[in-house]
């Protein structure tokens, strides 16, 4: 064993009093808490942008079929991963709310700075959806059941099922029918036609015109239930990744 390893194994204290110990812990808090918040904001924003991206950037992308399916699968990842470390190591049921709150702050800053001020899209067209309620559901479920299994089963399902209703009040005005050049379509799709982008939603769906399905109809709750079902497995999988991520593994060399 080398000298430096011996130094580690001989555990000694750098503290002389409890007051000094308290000061040290405050310093750790002052460093660790903003670190965690900034990392959550950065990672979640990056992850969400590259997996959900346009479905959340634009109001005309928030359809009844793909947006409520893709979004819960992506939004559950960080809450599951970091719930493991926060609950298992620190007994803090904050993984869902804190990570999604960080995403929300990052999203609002970016939409305003980048999509509105930089690229000149109206905020009415690029506002971020709300997901904080989904994080609260996950954390409350964990706090009440104290079980990752039940949190995945009920909380994971609820995230998929409630995403659309949670945003419904904000989205409803954009689903109102209007007539444009003799064709009936939603306000959201009208905005989409006015603001041509390089990734318009025709990439993933036919822009429906003049049928009741244009405005949601029965497909929406079906998608929500399907998303909820998938999300149970999704939560458990990412919880396992969170378990792997907290392993304090030391190796002798990289290669």
């Amino acid at each position, binding site marked *: 064993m*080398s*000298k*430096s*390893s*011996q*130094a580690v194994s*001989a*555990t*000694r*204290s*750098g*503290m*002389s*009093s409890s007051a000094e*110990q308290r000061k*040290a*812990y405050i*310093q*750790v808090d*002052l*460093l*660790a808490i*903003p*670190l*965690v918040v*900034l*990392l959550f*904001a*950065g*990672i979640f924003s*990056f*992850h969400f*942008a*590259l*997996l*959900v*991206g*346009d479905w959340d*950037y634009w109001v005309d992308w928030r359809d009844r079929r793909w947006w409520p399916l893709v979004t819960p699968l992506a939004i559950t990842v960080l809450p599951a991963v970091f719930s493991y*470390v926060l609950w298992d*190591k620190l007994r803090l049921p904050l993984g869902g709310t804190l990570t999604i709150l960080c995403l929300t702050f*990052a999203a609002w*800053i*970016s939409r305003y*700075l*980048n999509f509105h001020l*930089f*690229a*000149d*899209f109206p905020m009415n067209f690029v506002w971020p959806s709300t997901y904080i309620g989904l994080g609260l559901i996950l954390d409350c479920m964990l706090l009440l059941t104290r079980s990752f299994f039940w949190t995945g089963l009920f909380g994971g399902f609820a995230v998929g099922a409630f995403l659309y209703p949670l945003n419904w009040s904000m989205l409803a005005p954009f689903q109102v029918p209007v007539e444009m050049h003799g064709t009936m379509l939603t306000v959201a799709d009208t905005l989409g036609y006015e603001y041509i*982008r*390089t*990734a318009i939603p025709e990439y993933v769906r036919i822009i429906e015109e003049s049928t009741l399905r244009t405005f949601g109809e029965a497909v929406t709750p079906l998608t929500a239930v399907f998303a909820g079902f998938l999300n149970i497995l999704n939560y458990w999988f990412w919880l396992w990744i*969170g378990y792997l*991520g907290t*392993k*304090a*593994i*030391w*190796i002798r060399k990289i290669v």
Partner: protein
Amino acid sequence: MKTAAYSSPKTPWARFFLLLSLVAIIFSAYRVYQHATAFTVGLDYFSPEFQQYWMRLLYIQLPVLALAGAGIVGWLLVTRDRNLDKLEPAEELRRYFVLLSQILLFACIAYLTASPFTEADAAWHQVTVRDTDFTPTHIVLFYFAIPMFIMSGVAAFVYARTRLPQFADRVSLPFALLVAGPIMIMPNLGLNEWGHTFFYAEELFAAPIHWGFVLLGWSAFAAGGLLVQLLTRIVELTRLVSEDSAEPQKVLAAG
């Protein structure tokens, strides 16, 4: 290395905020420059204005960043602690505070890179079809912000390897993953640009061509493991032997 008389370990807040201010000023300057010139002289790669305002910036920033990175890492290696076996607990604790402040700075740069500057690229490519890989948002994101991100991570990693006994002889796998993720974004950029050049000129942000970036972003999930490693050692170093002990450096357990 000097072993000064005992003093309560403190985070170098003044130096931290100085560096943070520097980072804030540089990133803000890039943002203002991008806002002022991206849509005026940044649209046509073949125009003389583009060469003057954007390519010149690229040619200046790349060697500056390479020299700065090599300088910081070189300085950390040259001034390494060669007597880690004689390190006092109070000094070791102070170095943990320095390391945490470095990782906090890394988290600040991670947020700026992964959220506002990544999504500036998303917003830009929604309104323009690229005629070059070196678009105004790419020159800022891929050739300035991500190298800064890499530099801050590598500097923290090398600091730990050269100044902390726990990290000197062994490699922390979570820390290595946390640093390797941003580094591997640069090779993955090759795939991204190759694809965008040949078959995907537009920008659907959630497209499969971007999923390599997501995978590398997930390397940050190892942050939990690193925090466990850091906090475990900090707890050992801040443990009190007895309340009335005036001597700060007590051997708790002879290895």
